[in-house]
Structure formats: structure tokens, C-alpha cells
């Protein structure tokens, strides 16, 4: 068959064979391996992106959790602080009350003791004065009685009595202190 334009069926088929071999070869040797590599790389980066996203989400979650914990811890600390302050205030009030009571009882006891001692000293002073009076009277009676002598005796009696009273008071005051 004579086809114009030098069209030759056999040569068309030979060109087709050539192209089919080329297309198949290029697909097998270049297109598919490179596409596979590109796909693997895309997946690799997608995986990295996914991991990053997950890590970011996890970090965000942990941060939120930590903030929540921090907030609750702060609240707890505040509550505990308040409770401690309250407890401290109660305890101090209790101690102060007790101390006051104790101080009052100590003062009362001391006053009572001082009173007792005072009475005791006065009693003992009176006894000593009596004894002195008796001793002086005896001395008077035994010695010669003269006006000068009498006056001197009285003076001495008064001085000794005053000294005894003063000494008793001093003793009393020292004990009270």
C-alpha cells in the first residue's frame, strides 16, 4: 500500500516499539524509584511533623497540667498558711491566758506569803520586845535605881527596840523581794 507523505506502517510500528521500550524502561529505572523516594521522603517529613505536633500538644497538655497543679498547690499553701496562722493565734492566745493566770496565782501566793511572813515577823518582834522588856526590868530591879540611870536605861531600851523593829522590817522586805 502506497501511502502519501512517506508514511510507512512498518516504520510506525518500529517507532512504537522503540517508544514502548523507552517508556517502560524509563518508568522502571527512573520514574518509579524517584517517585517512591519522594513518597518516602514526604512520609518521613509528615511523620516528623506529626511527631512535632504531638510533642507540642503533649507539652501544651503538660504545661496546662503543671499550671493547674501549681494553682492548686498555691491554693493549698494559702489555705494551710491561713490554718497555721489561725492555729498560731489560738495557741498564743491560750498561752498568754495561761501565763496571765499563772502570773496572777504566783502574785497572789507571793502576797499571801509576804503577809504571813509579816505577821510572823511582827509576832516574833513582839516576843523579843517582851523579852527585852523583861530583861531590862530585871536589870533595873537588880541595879541601883537612880534618875540618870533610869533615863539611860529608857534611852537604851528605846534604841534597842527601834533597832530590832528596823532589822525585822529589813528582813521582811528582803524576803518579799
Amino acid at each position: 500500500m502506497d501511502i502519501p507523505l512517506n508514511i510507512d506502517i512498518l516504520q510506525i510500528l518500529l517507532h512504537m516499539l522503540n517508544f514502548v521500550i523507552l517508556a517502560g524502561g524509563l518508568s522502571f529505572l527512573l520514574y518509579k524509584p524517584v517517585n517512591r523516594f519522594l513518597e518516602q521522603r514526604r512520609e518521613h517529613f509528615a511523620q516528623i511533623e506529626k511527631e512535632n505536633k504531638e510533642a507540642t500538644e503533649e507539652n501544651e497538655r503538660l504545661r496546662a497540667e503543671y499550671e493547674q497543679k501549681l494553682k492548686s498547690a498555691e491554693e493549698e499553701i494559702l489555705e494551710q498558711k491561713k490554718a497555721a496562722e489561725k492555729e498560731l493565734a489560738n495557741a498564743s492566745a491560750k498561752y498568754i491566758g495561761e501565763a496571765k493566770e499563772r502570773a496572777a496565782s504566783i502574785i497572789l501566793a507571793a502576797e499571801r506569803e509576804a503577809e504571813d511572813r509579816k505577821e510572823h515577823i511582827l509576832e516574833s518582834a513582839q516576843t523579843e520586845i517582851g523579852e527585852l522588856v523583861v530583861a531590862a526590868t530585871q536589870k533595873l530591879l537588880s541595879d541601883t535605881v537612880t534618875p540618870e540611870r533610869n533615863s539611860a536605861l529608857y534611852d537604851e531600851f528605846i534604841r534597842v527596840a527601834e533597832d530590832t523593829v528596823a532589822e525585822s522590817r529589813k528582813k521582811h522586805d528582803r524576803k518579799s523581794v
Partner: protein
Amino acid sequence: MKSDNKSKRFLFLAIWLLIIAIIIVGIVAFWPPGAKHETIKETMQDGVLHEHNRISLFGLEVNPALISAYIVTAVLLIAAALIRIFAIPKFKLIPGKFQSIIEKLVEFFSDMANNNSHHKPKFIGAYIFGAGVYIFFSTIFELFGIQAVTTDGASISLPAPISDINAAIALGVLSYAIILGAGIRFGGLRGALGVLKDFSLPISMSFRLFGALLSGLLVTELVYYYVGLSFVLPVIVAVLFTLLHALIQTYVLATLVSIFYGEAVEPKPKKVKVKKKEVI
């Protein structure tokens, strides 16, 4: 001041060289042509039809473009095998220059297939990758000017494979056959009919490819015919009619095939039968 003087000097030099080039081109253009074995008519006719200069392929007389096609295929397959064996296993996550080129090349066709054919884009991606690479490299093949001996004993420069109408028809018909096959495979009879109604597709594909390549070839032949035009002009002509053609035709055929394939494999919505209203 210094840079002003420098730029002025460059401008002067450029104008001077341009004037010399124009004069040389003028002289050469009017130089009488040397003795030719063929007239320009014969050269052009042979460029289009390849009737005279034929090459023997295992005893069969074929057009030189078929030899070109086989050489292109062999070179491309060897290059692909070398890349597959030595380069692809060393591909890194962060690509180098060569890896980037290969990846871009594959991605270009893969993306084109994915964009134009949403269903089953893998097969057509591989096909248009093969077709694109073949058209591109077979178009720039003529720039190398590989010599071959014809059956008459004359020496010729091997032309671009697609400048032979048989190669263009082969590619056009094969592409159409693939689209038709996909239509039948995925759309059944309706799909086949849908593809068959575009019966002009193989003709338009073949002749577009052939015409585009042929125009470049004819201009190049014309330029090379006259020795006088063979000095500066071939560089411009080669770039315009070879490299640009290579890129444009690669893009056009790959796009057309992927679009028609996508259309053929697209699932067709089932027709809803509307009951005829009863006439009262």
C-alpha cells in the same frame, strides 16, 4: 567616576563588536553559495518526506529518524540505568543539585498527571514522563549533528526522530490508544464511546508534533543550506527552533495526553431515567 568610565568603555566595545558582526554577517550573506549536490527544493523535500536519504537497518531501508530514535532510546536507557544504579541509592533527604534536577523532572510529570487526571494518575504519569523525556531529548538530538551514511553512500546529519512523520504518528496513535484503552477499562462501552468521539485526537496529536518539529527543521535546513548564514544565525535558530520547540512540544503533548486520559478514566455519573409524563 571610575564606574562611569568603565561602563562607557564597555558600551563602546559592545557597539564596536556589534558593528563588526553586522558587517561580517552582511558579507557572508551575500557570499555566493558553493557547489551543492542537492537543490534547496530537494533538501526541503527530503527534510519533510525522507524519501531519498535512507539508512539500512539490518537490511531494511528506513528513514534516518528511526536510527535517531533508536540512538536516543539507547542513550536515555543507559543514562537512566546509570542514574538508577549509582545516583538513586545515594539520594539524600536534603537533595544536591543533580538530585534536585532529577526530582524536579519526575515531580513535574507526576504533578501534571495528578492535576489533570485525578483517577489512576500513576500509569499516565509514567507514560507522559517517558513521552516528555523522549520528545525533549529527541528534539535536541539534532543539535549534536551525529553523522550517518545513507544507502547511497552519502553522509548525512541525523535528524530529530519526531521530524519523521512516522515517529509523530507512532506517538500520537500510541497516546490515543492508551487513552482509548483507559476509557474502555474504566468506563466500559460509554467510556470507549466518549474517547472515540474525539477521533481527530490521534491525527491532531501526530500532526501537531510533526508540524512543530518540521517547521524548526525546515528553518534550520534553510539556514544550513547557505554557508553564508551558518555563522551567528544557527545559534539563535537552534535555540529558537530546537530548544524552545523541545520544551513546548514536551509540555503540550504531556498536558494533552494527561487531560484526555483524566477525562477518559473519570467515573461517569449514572443517568437517571425520567419517566415520561402521562399525557392526560
